[in-house]
């Protein structure tokens, strides 16, 4: 009985939070299926009376959403892979070494995050133009890295700090190099942190709109957030198509979460160490 009381409210809380998290997304899905006349109604319909399933193939084909998703995938994956490599190393160094400049470096790294992107857009555009990278995947990947790596370094440093030194010392006594110890001992334990950073970097590349808008003009190169605009006209928006595109756009992320979940949510705890 006490179990029910103790656990019961937790289940209720889980339900409530899930509803809160999912409802807007559910709304997007059903709006994508509603015919135009049903979208603007006084009493919200919780289920479309006449689901417009053909919205999806239409949007993928005619609307070139498929191509845009591919572009987004390339940019996001590139950002994620490079971000992990660079920031894992940097975070390790900052965590393990009492580099005197650590605090200053950390603050510098924060500073890069402190300006609203709108203010930085024009100089970034000029930089990319001079580098000859305008309109390429690299212009986006490099810029996303510049903004995601600092954050990644911080997050991973936090994780690495909470992994005791003894583990690495033990490994090195057993003959491993510093890098070997890093790879074989620290990284697995920091897996949740790495997974989190990976998702973060991927999402940065996947979600970003303003820089993609600024650097990319050619239709073939547009990423998914840009392609949404195809359905937004002069004051008249095709909401069904916008929502359908949004659903298609969210699906790969759901897949990513499901795949990464094992690393995100379960951890090999430091119970591997005795004492």
């Amino acid at each position, binding site marked *: 009985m006490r179990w029910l009381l103790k656990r019961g409210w937790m289940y209720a809380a889980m339900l409530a939070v899930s509803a809160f998290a999912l409802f807007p997304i559910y709304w997007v899905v059903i709006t994508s299926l509603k015919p135009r*006349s049903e979208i*603007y109604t006084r009493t919200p319909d919780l289920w479309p009376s006449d689901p417009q399933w053909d919205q999806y193939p239409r949007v993928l084909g005619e609307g070139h959403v498929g191509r845009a998703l591919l572009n987004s995938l390339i940019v996001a994956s590139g950002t994620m892979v490079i971000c992990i490599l660079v920031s894992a190393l940097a975070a390790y160094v900052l965590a393990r070494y009492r580099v005197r400049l650590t605090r200053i470096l950390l603050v510098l790294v924060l500073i890069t995050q402190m300006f609203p992107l709108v203010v930085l857009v024009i100089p970034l555009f000029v930089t990319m133009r001079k580098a000859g990278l305008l309109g390429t995947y690299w212009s986006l990947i490099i810029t996303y890295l510049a903004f995601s790596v600092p954050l990644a370094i911080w997050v991973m440093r936090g994780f690495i700090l909470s992994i005791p030194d003894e583990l690495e010392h033990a490994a090195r006594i057993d003959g491993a190099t510093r890098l070997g110890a890093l790879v074989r001992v620290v990284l697995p334990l920091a897996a949740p942190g790495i997974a989190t950073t990976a998702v973060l970097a991927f999402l940065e590349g996947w979600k970003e709109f303003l820089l993609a808008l600024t650097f990319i003009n050619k239709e073939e190169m547009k990423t998914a957030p840009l392609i949404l605009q195809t359905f937004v006209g002069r004051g008249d928006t095709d909401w069904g198509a916008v929502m359908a595109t949004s659903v298609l756009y969210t699906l790969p992320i759901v897949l990513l979460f499901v795949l990464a979940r094992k690393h995100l949510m379960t951890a090999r705890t430091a119970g591997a160490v005795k004492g």
Partner: protein
Amino acid sequence: MRKFSVTVAGLLLAAVVAACGGGDDEPSADKAAGSGSLEGSISVWIMDPGSPKIQDVVKQYATDFEAAHPGTQVDIQFVPWAQAHDKFVTAIAGGEVPDVAEMGTTWTPEFADQGALVEQQAIGEGQYVSSLVDAATLNDKVYGKPWYAGARALIYRKDLLEKAGVEPPTNWDELMAAAKAVEEKVGGGVDAVGFTGLSEHMYLPTIWQAGGEIATQDGDTWKSALNSPEAAQAIDFYASFYKQGLSPKAAVGWEEPDAQTAFANGDIAMLIAGGWGYNSIIATKPELEEKIGTALTPAGPSGKGTAFAGGSHLVQFQESQNKELGAAFVDFMLEPEQLNKFTSEIGFLPGTVDGIKASGYLEDPQRKPFAEQLLDHSAVYPPSPKWGGLEGANIFDGEIQKVMKGQETAQEAVQNLASKMDEEFAG
């Protein structure tokens, strides 16, 4: 596929040449018809028209043009409306601009003033909608060719006005009377008008209708003309609908699409909207088509029922590497038949007089008021280089909203606006 488009393009060209063969000599038509000297590639920025279908219409222009001029390449790139102004700024400041672009009429003077645009020479009398040519004029030079245009007129529910026992209003007094009658007699939560707090194109033209001006030019400088009794009267009139409960409570924070939605849902009886709004409403609720009537914007005390003529220009950039090709493509797009393919899709009117005549609007009783409004009763905002900025910063909305909410008098509002405008014009 290529053979097919070549054939189509060839037929079209033949038709076009035949159609305007007897007309006045357009140097650009000569170029399009026979010149083999066009070459190279250009990039063209067009605002997102709102659907892949209409995008294809525009892309077809490129295909047809390329077919007619082998060896040329036209790259159409779509730009979202909401961010287009920023993209232009970034492109110009960043040093990489397209060759040709669709530009909002209120932005053309701003960018022309920076020396970013090419002066357009071949603007003949009576060729284009005159208000739009004014909008592209800076220091007596024209920097853009009107591509498409639209003016807002009155859209109303015939059945609701009948129920209220009133005729469609033709002037301010009738408008107020009709609104009151509707509010009283129709009921069912229906409000009379959808005058919103955030729609510049609904409230600013009332100033013209009252006989006032928004700004005047003295030599090189512009000065606000809002601090006038006419302007105050206009704003007072506009806000009085909201204050007297003749508009929905939320309208103070509405934008134009919100008002259109409300009309489509039968929540308001009268609306100021353009042909594109009309198309949108019918597309959303087809059953409304027979219940809607259209008329010219009600005239103010000055006798003028002026509406704002909005639209886009086609401009060329100074930094373009291939101005000749750009000019040729622009003229191709402006041919009446080509033009109407696009404008009929988006619910606007062509910016050329020939285009309007070919559009069929003047023969369609439902759509005729929009064409008339544009041709005879429309005006543009002061074509000052600073106007784009004023619009972008939404200086006007806040004051209008305050008047609607009774936090300010119309007098105070226009005074505040006049001083803000002058500040911007000067600095």
